[in-house]
């Protein structure tokens, strides 16, 4: 009995030793397999782990005015974001959701639970990031009620022929003024993270944008141990002159959902990238943006940058734009127009200034204006629509290029040039104003009661202008003269008629876009016989020619059209393309692009004849009886043309035009278009005040102030 155990013991320890050796060999073999055989694979994975290519955003180009004043620049700002791949994933072996805890802690650090404003801010940011649909869906899955508002969403869309048109679309959007519970915010974050994880999960999801330096540092410190939380730098576009130049500069915003495909096709990777949505920021988006670069960095498990390995591709900064706009003149224009608009209670007004020789835009004011800085912090196109709706005056609308109005007497420049060139009249032809014109009825030419009465503005004041040539007729803005040259008179003279009026209207640029480098420009159809048959199922009559010749009836144009047609008279018959951006320079200040003035084929008009039209405009300002004597500027000869355009804003509820006066007369738009110096024009100015009444009373003082400032303050 004593021996056997000893023998067992011995064999046992041999067995134990063999086990030890075997185990050791197994472990060494496994190590060999991992470290030597598949070493390369794992080394590759370690590289994937720690090396990451990140975007280096290119700084957006700065916009300068003609004197080098900064109109748009970039201010550093911070974004607090989470990187989905770096967030802790939910460990299923525990009841708690690790990812949710991390997000909850982040919200707590941001004080979203105690500060309702912060909660709102985050909700707005998430709305931008997620979009309408996912935003609502996140709340729904979290079981939190959300209230909605209905808006008409306006967006610029490209038509098939490449034009940009405004499209309206009704939409339900969440009411972002309601309080947001933390549970709701959490649901938003979780949804954003979940959506992002389907794509590239290293892309940061912004939680809170536009954080100032102090707040950014605090959050960075408090979230040091929070996996996946990142404080990123993001420049914000800043417009120092705020509402002064917002219609020119436009603003930035995240890529609109409706246009997302367009941008993706152009190579935009991040749909949250801020792009120009209006103004020059929109037109020159590609050059201003530059090209983002890439950098290879080493990150730790929390995704924090440890060190830069190398820059894969340097970002290419956007080009700087130099405008012909003079911000000082722009400011004068803004002030002068704003004062008048306020005085008259007009809903909106426009003031434009341009160099008539090359189309370089010196100023563009469309009132009401808006502070474009608010969009850097704003909520995207859908909430812009909301704001527009809340303000019936629609401040985002650029009336200078987007509003079509009857040009009234400013159109006489076109009719006069046409009549002279088409030899309807000679410069010396005299037409007598002896009171209203009675145009016999076409079917009952011998029945005076059927005749149609056409009056000139002066008849209401009991004044008859008597005999006039074209020069004095322009100076006096006599309508009888222009009725006659437009439509003629039976048995007396032959007028221009619909075809020739339409031809000259087109030659002066009406009926098509002026081509200014701003988005959202419109043009109306040129009314002629065919147009009238198609749209009104009526034939063109002499009365139509009468109305067309004085810029009423169906003639429509934007203030920009009036400006360009005035410039064509001023510069001796050249229709120019208005243009803001004159130069583009790169970050090294090297000139990359220069605008060549686009001047169309000269109008087929003898300069000798056009001089009579110019003289007519000179008369309006510089003779005692002229309509625009108040627009004189000391030491400078101004030439101008007023306009008082009757308009009908049809209201279907009263089945009539709104704002008729006691006698049933229609309201008027006030126009004034002028250039100076008469001898060698430097500047052409057009002022328009919607429902501003008499052009001479409302529009002239604004233009006079602009011209006077231009010649005496800005160019001493």
């Amino acid at each position, binding site marked *: 009995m004593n021996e056997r155990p000893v023998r*067992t013991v011995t064999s*046992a320890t041999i067995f134990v030793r063999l086990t030890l050796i075997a185990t*050791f060999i197994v472990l*060494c073999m496994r190590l060999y397999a991992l470290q030597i055989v*598949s070493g390369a694979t794992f*080394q590759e994975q*370690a590289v994937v782990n*720690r090396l990451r290519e990140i975007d280096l955003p290119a700084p957006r180009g700065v916009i300068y005015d003609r004197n080098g004043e900064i109109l748009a620049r970039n201010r550093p700002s911070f974004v607090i974001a989470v990187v989905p791949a770096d967030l802790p994933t939910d460990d299923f072996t525990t009841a708690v959701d690790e990812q949710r805890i991390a997000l909850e802690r982040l919200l707590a650090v941001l004080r979203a639970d105690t500060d309702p404003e912060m909660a709102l801010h985050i909700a707005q940011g998430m709305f931008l990031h997620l979009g309408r649909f996912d935003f609502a869906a996140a709340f729904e899955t979290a079981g939190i009620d959300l209230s909605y508002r209905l808006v008409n969403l306006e967006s610029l869309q490209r038509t098939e022929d490449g034009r940009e048109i405004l499209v309206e679309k009704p939409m339900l959007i969440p009411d972002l003024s309601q309080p947001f519970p933390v549970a709701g915010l959490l649901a938003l974050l979780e949804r954003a993270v979940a959506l992002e994880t389907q794509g590239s999960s290293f892309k940061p999801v912004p939680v809170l944008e536009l954080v100032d330096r102090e707040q950014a540092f605090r959050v960075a410190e408090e979230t040091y141990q929070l996996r996946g939380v990142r404080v990123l730098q993001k420049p914000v576009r800043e417009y120092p002159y705020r509402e002064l130049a917002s219609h020119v500069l436009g603003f930035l915003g995240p890529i609109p959902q409706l246009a997302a495909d367009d941008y993706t096709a152009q190579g935009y990777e991040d749909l949250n990238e801020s792009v120009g949505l209006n103004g020059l920021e929109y037109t020159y988006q590609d050059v201003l943006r530059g090209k983002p670069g890439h950098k290879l960095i080493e990150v730790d498990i929390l995704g924090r940058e440890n060190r830069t390995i190398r820059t894969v591709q340097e970002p290419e900064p956007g080009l700087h734009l130099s405008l012909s706009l003079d911000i000082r003149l722009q400011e004068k224009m803004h002030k002068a127009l704003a004062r008048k608009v306020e005085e008259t209670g007009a809903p909106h007004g426009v003031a434009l200034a341009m160099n008539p020789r090359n189309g370089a835009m010196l100023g563009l004011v469309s009132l009401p204006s808006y502070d474009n800085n608010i969009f850097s912090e704003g909520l995207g196109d859908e909430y812009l629509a909301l704001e527009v709706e809340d303000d019936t005056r629609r401040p985002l609308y650029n009336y200078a290029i987007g509003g079509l109005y009857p040009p009234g007497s400013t159109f006489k420049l076109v009719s006069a040039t046409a009549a002279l060139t088409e030899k309807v009249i000679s410069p010396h032809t005299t037409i007598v104003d002896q009171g209203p014109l009675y145009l016999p009825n076409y079917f009952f030419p011998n029945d005076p009661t059927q005749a149609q009465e056409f009056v000139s503005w002066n008849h209401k004041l009991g004044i008859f202008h008597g005999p006039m040539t074209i020069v004095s007729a322009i100076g006096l803005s006599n309508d009888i003269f222009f009725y006659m040259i437009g439509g003629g008179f039976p048995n007396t003279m032959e007028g221009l008629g619909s075809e020739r009026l339409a031809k000259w209207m087109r030659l002066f640029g009406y009926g098509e876009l002026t081509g200014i480098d701003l988005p959202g420009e419109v043009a109306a159809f040129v009314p002629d016989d065919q147009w009238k048959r198609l749209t009104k199922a009526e034939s063109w009559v002499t009365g139509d020619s009468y109305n067309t010749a004085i810029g009423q009836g169906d003639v429509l144009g934007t203030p920009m059209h009036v400006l360009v047609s005035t410039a064509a008279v001023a510069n001796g018959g050249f229709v120019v393309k208005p243009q803001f951006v004159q130069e583009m320079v790169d970050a090294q200040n090297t000139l990359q692009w220069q605008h060549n003035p686009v001047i169309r084929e000269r109008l087929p008009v003898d300069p000798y004849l056009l001089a009579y039209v110019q003289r007519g405009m000179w008369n309006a300002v510089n003779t005692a009886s002229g309509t625009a004597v108040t627009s004189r500027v000391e030491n400078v000869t101004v030439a101008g043309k007023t306009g008082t355009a009757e308009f009908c804003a049809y209201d279907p509820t009263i089945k009539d035009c709104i704002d008729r006066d006691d006698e049933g007369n229609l309201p008027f738009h006030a126009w004034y278009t002028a250039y100076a110096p008469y001898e060698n024009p430097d500047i052409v100015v057009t002022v328009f005040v919607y429902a501003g009444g008499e052009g001479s009373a409302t529009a002239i003082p604004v233009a006079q102030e602009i011209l006077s400032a231009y010649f005496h303050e800005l160019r001493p």
Partner: protein
Amino acid sequence: MFELFLIDRSLWRHFDKLLFLAVLSLCSIGIAMTYSATITTIDLADYWQRQLIFTILGAIALISTALFDYRHLELLAQPSYIGLLISLLAVYFFGEVKGGARRWLDLGITDMQPTEAGKFLLIVFFAWYLSRFQEHIRSLPYLLGAVILLAAPLGLVYIQPDLGMTITLAFISGTLILINGVRFAHILMGVAAGIAAWRVLRGTLQDYMVERIQIFLDPGSNPDAAFNVRQALISIGNGGWLGMGWGEGPQNQLHFLRVRHTDFIFSVIAEELGYVGAVLILLLLFFVVWRLVHIADLAQDQFGRLITLGVAALIFFQTVVNVGMNLAILPVTGMTLPFLSYGGSSLISMMVAVGLAQSVIMRHRKIDFQ
């Protein structure tokens, strides 16, 4: 009892200096690797200093234990078994729940996990039981007695639940029973009983246990746990032949590797010291176990022999389970790597265990002792 602590110079003659040197080398490497694994984490930056202090304390504990005559432990065998049962029952009734398991006793000052000490108590108890009844152990009642005595604490640990510890205790005790000598027929019976028990116990496996096993079998099922294992593999593979250099392993330094100073210190070693370093350290660990088996062979009595083998089994088991987990050939259990993983209680208790073995070898010649 006083003479227990008297230092007899002749005792030192048989003190296993190679074993001691191997253990101290492992501890030093542990300190260095703890440094590398924690120095980039501000909160843990002083851990290497703590580990150094634990090592010094452990060395003192080792020598003190070596001086203590292990044979006096025979007197403590029964009380320690009863004490273990009582503390496990106390845990069952009054224990604190942490992370879904009832394993801790609140002692006011600190929380205690009775199973940590339980490993040693069980080694001492089974060494006593098996050596005391060695003559009878070949008859079934005594073997069954051992199994029943083992089943009681095992059951209590299992329902805490703590599968890892249950298996550890079963492995140590099982090794002792087998090495002490069992009939082949009895082994077959045991296997049959084991299969029967598995059928019953399988239903009682806690969710987390099932899941851990599942993750081990299919790493895709839990991304987070699988993430840890994957990162460990990447770290090891990244090491190559000679490693990235101490303090230079990106997986370690950039914290892709988690619990890197405790459970996954072996991955840090493999990444920074490479295949050569990892094999050398494995060699040191197996040398320690080998040396303990050698001591067991020299032990003057069955009690000392079983104690030493128990200690060897413990170190072997923890090494294999931890390294196996790092190498993704065994499931993740949260078991530390002896002498190398950061942690005071685990290090000091391992040193005490080696001290016990030293106590056995120092007294393996009766003549020296008397």
